[in-house]
């Protein structure tokens, strides 16, 4: 058996057109093993089409998509290499969650008990004998994830797994994926909501109108200077302490006791402790990331097709 040492997932020059719509346009990116990569972009950016091309469900018009160096269709035991949860709707409503998974255990040659194991892993154990027709959207998301886990794969590909999950479910999903990646495995997870992802992913691949607009680490995405929100009853003392050794400190006064300061939150906190300044709030700025995402993925006037 040869050992493949390249990226876990590779897309090269992928193209796909549906009718007149160019869904994916010369898309090239790779996902390194052991990372959680966020596959981000607004609805209709081509994320789902790309994931389906990676998995052999949609035939590309051009380019190649490989997982572990091979096309999906060429993997001898695909379920052991990559598990995919693409939609929370692909179930027969009259079949129970357990029966659904046992079908695929049988087809792929896994022991039937594997279905019970993954259902317990995703917290569906108590509901596994009920018909899927009675499952909530969140439960279907968990069942889709359970199906992806059946073969204990090296790579997980998830399409909008947080859709329909309640806040508790989203936290659970994040922890689950983090644990999965911490064991050296690879996760590619799509979302149109950056905030769902920014606490989870290491890398991002950002898509707009079928084209790659950015691939890199999350930190590289936010290129603006750091800032923080501060509340203190001792505004003047804090500013004096911060001002030492800083040429032009950029401060915006939001309220008599509230400031937006263009410095890293950690630095402000350290200075405040040294100067014994009382702080009531210290929040690192985040919207620069969201702003960057918004600017990358928003359609500009000049790009719109003429009506």
């Amino acid at each position, binding site marked *: 058996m040869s050992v493949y040492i390249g990226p876990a997932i590779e897309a090269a020059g992928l193209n796909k057109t549906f009718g007149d719509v160019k869904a994916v346009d010369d898309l090239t990116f790779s996902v390194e093993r052991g990372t959680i990569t966020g596959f981000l972009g607004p609805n209709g950016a081509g994320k789902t089409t790309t994931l389906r091309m990676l998995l052999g469900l949609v035939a590309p018009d051009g380019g190649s998509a490989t997982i572990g160096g091979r096309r999906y269709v060429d993997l001898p035991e695909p379920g052991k290499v990559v598990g995919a949860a693409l939609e929370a709707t*692909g179930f027969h409503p009259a079949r129970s969650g357990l029966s659904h998974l046992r*079908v695929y255990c*049988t087809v792929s040659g896994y022991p039937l008990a594997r279905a019970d194991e993954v259902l317990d892993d995703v917290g569906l154990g108590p509901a596994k004998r009920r018909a899927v027709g009675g499952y909530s959207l969140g439960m279907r998301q968990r069942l889709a994830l359970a199906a992806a886990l059946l073969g204990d794969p090296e790579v997980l590909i998830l399409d909008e797994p947080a859709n329909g999950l309640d806040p508790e479910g989203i936290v659970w999903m994040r922890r689950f994926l983090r644990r999965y990646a911490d064991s050296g495995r690879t996760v590619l997870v799509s979302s149109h909501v950056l905030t769902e992802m920014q606490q989870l992913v290491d890398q991002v691949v950002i898509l707009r109108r079928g084209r790659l607009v950015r691939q890199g680490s999350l930190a590289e995405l936010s290129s603006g200077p750091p800032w923080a929100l501060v509340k203190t009853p001792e505004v003047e003392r804090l500013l004096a302490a911060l001002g030492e050794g800083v040429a032009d400190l950029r401060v915006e006064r939001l309220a008599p006791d509230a400031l937006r300061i263009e410095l890293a939150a950690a630095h402000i906190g350290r200075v405040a402790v040294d100067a014994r300044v009382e702080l009531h709030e210290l929040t690192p700025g985040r919207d620069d990331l969201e702003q960057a995402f918004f600017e990358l993925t928003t359609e500009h006037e000049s790009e719109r097709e003429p009506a």
Partner: protein
Amino acid sequence: MTSLIAGEFRKLFTTRLWLWLLVGAMGLTALYTSLLIGFSEDPDTMTAPLHSPEGQRTLFAVASGGANTLVAVLAAIGITGEFRHKTATATFLATPRRGQVVAAKLATYALVGAAYGVACLFVVTAIAMPWLATKGIEVGLLDNGLPGTYAGVIADVAIFGLLGVGLGALLRNQVATVVGLLVYRFVAEPILTGIPALDSWTTYLPGSASAALTQVSLTTQEYLRAWEGGLVLAGYGLLFAGAGALFSMRRDIT
């Protein structure tokens, strides 16, 4: 391939449709059997007398009429349901070579069809033996070429399983496939075969090929020989399945 077929059986037996359609097929067989025996002494009957070998073969052949359309429907739902309920995604993720999925479904529904055929033959036997005894007709279950009709019925219903998978693979739309099958079998085909001027080519329609395979004898109709009927019928099934696997099943799963 064995595991794929086992998976198809698991899909089939984890919903109830197979049971309802089996009950329907057995009920339809019971109805046809009763009508045929009940009207056997009617002067206008088209069937040969029930004490004759031709009459007895025709009687046992109704098992295929009771089962074959419903098996085709079951098979069609088995494959179009993958698209209707979007389980095609999971199915093709587990088995990326889609032709193998079609092949597994063909094998599965041929076996299911054979089992339905056997069940419906038991229904005919259970109704006909005591009823004909009251008319003074003793039926030897291994006489009069009846084993050939049993084999024909089992083969016929099995081939209708292939037909249903093939048509479903080709059309992919569940409602269109099922309605098309029912309308064709219960409306269009009876009308077409009732037109004497068309006899030279209606003998090649699935229903007539099926009658030939199961050795039905009617005073009003000429059929192919049994083996010819079987070949024609299997040809339809494999033609649809081949076309479906080559064209329709290759389409994107979105």
